[in-house]
């Protein structure tokens, strides 16, 4: 059913229809509306779940860890500082190979304090061993949320669905909200082979000696890599059922013969697509929409970038002292491809700064110059004291 819903409200409804048995959450802007909406669904008797209003994000993550370990479908949502407070648990959940789902309403990380959107939070925990999916709009966020539960269950890996704070969470959009029976057909009841059960009392979270630790890490990495196929097939299954795709690992939009590409993730892609459609461009440009940041889709990326002369990679976060996380990883992935594109890496839209449509022609305009070092593209250095530039 098509409905005009605020992003958070849509996520809450989608989560609700996935029948989570335990939801734990702690409020943080801009994730709050998701939790509030879930709480309301519970209060109204629409959603029958154990809603645990924890005393911190640390406990939110811990509660869903415990709940899923005990065999329950579990969900949480957070943002920014909350994600960082959870960080230790996030690593732990994935190391234990416990399937849970979390929405990350992406927000900048303090200090200075900013409650507005960028990707610093999810990028900061990129090594935590979770699958990370980014969403272009609220429809994708809804669909990805449903898919995430399926992926988690099939891979025994936790899934983080990243959606831009405010830009998506607080925006009213028309969304085709999948009906309950459709989701029930798509998503079987939660089943976890290694669940804690007095009938089969296993020990989870053992101490592992150096003799085995490397192998355990290898298996986690291998599981992440194998999950790429699952992510694609789940998206395909969803498309078969609903006619809507979320973009598998990544998708390419725009003229196939374009020699200029822009790679971005999240709602930025919507801005870039509109720019491509509405603004006059002095050359053809195609958009590589990276949906799956973890596992990093190396093969798909090499395929998507074949034939490109220039590739602009837009990060919405900074790794101080290095540059952009995505940009760096794209460079690494394409290293040695011949002929590889010239790779231009920039950060844009930090701390909630608006990304205007004409950022695309501005970016393309730089391609005639030699490749510049990484920079915050939309930063006005005049605002800084000379010694701080």
């Amino acid at each position: 059913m098509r409905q005009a819903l605020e992003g958070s409200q849509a996520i809450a409804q989608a989560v609700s229809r996935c029948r989570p048995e335990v939801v734990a959450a702690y409020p943080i802007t801009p994730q709050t509306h998701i939790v509030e909406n879930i709480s309301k669904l519970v209060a109204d008797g629409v959603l029958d779940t154990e809603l645990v209003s924890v005393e911190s994000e640390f406990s939110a993550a811990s509660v869903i860890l415990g709940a899923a370990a005990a065999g329950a479908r579990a969900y949480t949502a957070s943002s920014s500082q909350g994600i960082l407070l959870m960080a230790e648990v996030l690593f732990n959940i994935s190391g234990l190979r416990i399937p849970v789902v979390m929405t990350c309403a992406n927000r900048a990380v303090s200090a200075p304090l900013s409650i507005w959107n960028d990707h610093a939070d999810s990028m900061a925990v990129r090594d935590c061993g979770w699958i990370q999916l980014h969403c272009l709009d609220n429809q994708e966020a809804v669909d990805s949320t449903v898919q995430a539960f399926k992926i988690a269950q099939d891979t025994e890996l936790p899934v983080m669905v990243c959606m831009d704070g405010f830009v998506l969470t607080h925006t009213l959009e028309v969304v085709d909200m999948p009906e309950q029976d459709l989701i029930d057909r798509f998503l079987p009841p939660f089943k976890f082979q290694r669940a804690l059960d007095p009938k089969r009392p296993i020990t989870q979270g053992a101490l592992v000696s150096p003799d085995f630790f490397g192998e355990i890490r290898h298996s986690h990495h291998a599981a992440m890599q194998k999950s790429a196929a699952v992510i694609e097939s789940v998206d395909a299954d969803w498309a078969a059922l609903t006619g809507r795709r979320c973009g598998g690992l990544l998708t390419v939009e725009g003229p196939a013969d374009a020699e200029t590409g822009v790679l971005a993730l999240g709602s930025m892609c919507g801005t870039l697509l509109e720019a491509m459609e509405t603004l006059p461009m002095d050359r053809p440009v195609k958009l590589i929409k990276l949906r799956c940041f973890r596992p990093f889709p190396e093969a798909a990326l090499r395929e998507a970038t074949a034939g490109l002369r220039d590739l602009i990679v837009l990060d919405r976060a900074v790794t101080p002292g290095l540059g952009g996380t995505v940009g760096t990883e794209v460079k690494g992935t394409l290293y040695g491809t011949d002929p590889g594109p010239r790779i231009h890496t920039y950060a844009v839209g930090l701390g909630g700064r608006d990304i205007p449509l004409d950022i695309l022609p501005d970016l393309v305009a730089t391609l005639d110059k030699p490749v510049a070092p990484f920079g915050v593209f939309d930063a006005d250095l005049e605002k800084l004291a000379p010694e701080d530039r």
Partner: protein
Amino acid sequence: MTDTSNATRLAELRLKHGRPPASPAEPSAPPRDKDLRKSQPRFRGLEAGHRACQGCGEALATRLVMESAGPDVMIANATGCLEVFTTPWPESAWRVPWIHSLFENAAAVAAGMESAMKAKGHRTKVLAFGGDGGTYDIGFQSLSGMLERYHNVLYVCYDNEAYMNTGIQRSSSTPHAASTTTSPSGKARMGKRHLKKDLLSIIAAHHIPYAASASVAYPTDIRRKVRHAMETEGPTFIVIHSPCPLGWGHDGSVTIEVARKAVQCGLFPLVELERGEVCNVMPIRQPQPVSEYLKLQSRFRHLFNDKDPRALEERQHLQALADHNITLFNLRGDQADPMDTAGMDTVRRGGPVH
């Protein structure tokens, strides 16, 4: 059923349960040897082969808790000695579903497990185990949250009064004046400068249905308290004083003796609280001088240096703290009581009296 088949069935049952044959004609049970372990008349929640030190109070306390808690439980265990010595992969000493996540989140993980049980309509009781570091200090917030949210979880704190797993560093549970590797005694300091945190009072302020302190020196009392907590719906909390021979500096053979003295001198009062109010205490038959407890342990050795006037002062300080407990909880018994510190551990043929 005919008489013959009854007799046959009975003989089979006797054989199966290792009873001597009713008549010489019946086959007798095969020699038991090591299989004796499988027929222990108690639940073996914590199995042998764990790697605790000799005379470990925590291992003992845990075993006792498991025996009373029984098989229909699942456990969230904080990081610490207990977690490390019971689960070096691929071995586990546990015979119940058990999970270790992190140091500070045992209560929250347990809350999640309990929520899962509630969601599924299962009655399996969830337990959370932590040491004093994971309870008094780093895990305190998640513990408080779990209690406040009224999860049906029994949290057991094995209190050995320092970070033993990392090498005997002081915690907020370390007693005043005890020497640890981060509160060593020396020319300028007499061990820990601060007091032992009064955790039970903080727990009491949550007004949970049941909270208690216990000691490995009184296994019957532990059993009773665990059973009571198991039967109580809602959050319950038990802190068990569990001497650490290595960290406290005493021989493994006197673990019980040390624990007993701590109770009998008043430094570790055994009390029970319901809804935050004291509802029962174990009276002390004859309060022992604190020095009788201190002198058994090398962590207090610096308090027995006759040449140092601070030693006597700190000893008197600890005595005053013990006396304060005795007054505060009205621990001095009016008369000999079978449930007091001298009567509670009385044994007779066939087991403990109580």
